[in-house]
């Protein structure tokens, strides 16, 4: 079965949207955190692919590129038990109430 990420040749008549957005700070930092984890042997490209490629189709198609990366980051750091989901929930609530 074709994976959700495997787009080559899928019927699509959408024109290519050539508009480019300046990356936002959080997008740059998600990109960088993946790289730093990689340099420490705490994450590999293959692990990241496995997470992104198993996102359900509807969500995959709605998420932006770096949302998929952020999702992969969270999945990998919780799988590796570097962080727990509960901790991330708590920290996020703290940061948002600041």
């Amino acid at each position: 079965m074709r994976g959700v990420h495997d787009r080559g040749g899928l019927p699509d008549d959408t024109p290519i949207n050539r508009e480019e957005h300046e990356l936002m700070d959080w997008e740059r930092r998600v990109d960088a955190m993946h790289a730093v984890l990689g340099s420490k042997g705490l994450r590999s490209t293959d692990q990241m692919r496995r997470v992104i490629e198993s996102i359900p189709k509807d969500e995959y198609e709605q998420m932006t590129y770096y949302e998929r990366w952020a999702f992969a980051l969270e999945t990998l750091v919780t799988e590796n038990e570097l962080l727990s989901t509960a901790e991330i929930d708590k920290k996020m609530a703290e940061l948002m109430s600041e």
Partner: protein
Amino acid sequence: MSNEQQVNHGDHDSESEIQPSYYASRAKAIEALLVQKGVMTTNEINSEVNAMDSKSPADGAKIVALAWLDDSFKTKLLANASEALEEIGYKLPDETPYLKVVENSEDIHHVVVCTLCSCYPRMLLGRPPDWYKSLAYRSRVVVSPREVMEEFGLRLSDDIEVRVLDSTADLRYMVIPRRPLGTDGFDQESLAALVTRDSMIGVSDPLSAHF
């Protein structure tokens, strides 16, 4: 997958963000915790951000310009890109995926995609543009490359063979576009100024020498 906040972006190909999304806040929390627990430092993250910010298509353009000027360099570059680059002082990071450089000619035109995601020669061109990562580009360019290139303003004559190269996590491609006419006597810098990012992906030609 969290469903707490599914933002509907409407046009799913658009990578643009309107407001701090759920994922942005999530990422901020993860960063704070990774730093707090000593998994990584803010400096390490910052220097990685700066390292990627400092890479741009200007690096690839210089290399293309040199290949146009120096046949023996071009031959080596096409045969073994990482060795050829090392000889001119471009040491690619050890974890860099295999890099393959291909050349467009009057008979063959190459265009690069990553149908599975976004694999791209970041070490030479910086981060990939939004459209390169879009679902439309990834699905369409392998079946209708000429139509897609026309959307970028490139109309190729029918007798030119089009080769679409699909990148992977382990193999990245960069295109040496055709050298523009009227550039005899140009030095590396003036040639590099004509080499656009999109021409090194293969969706357009370099700038013309007379603009």
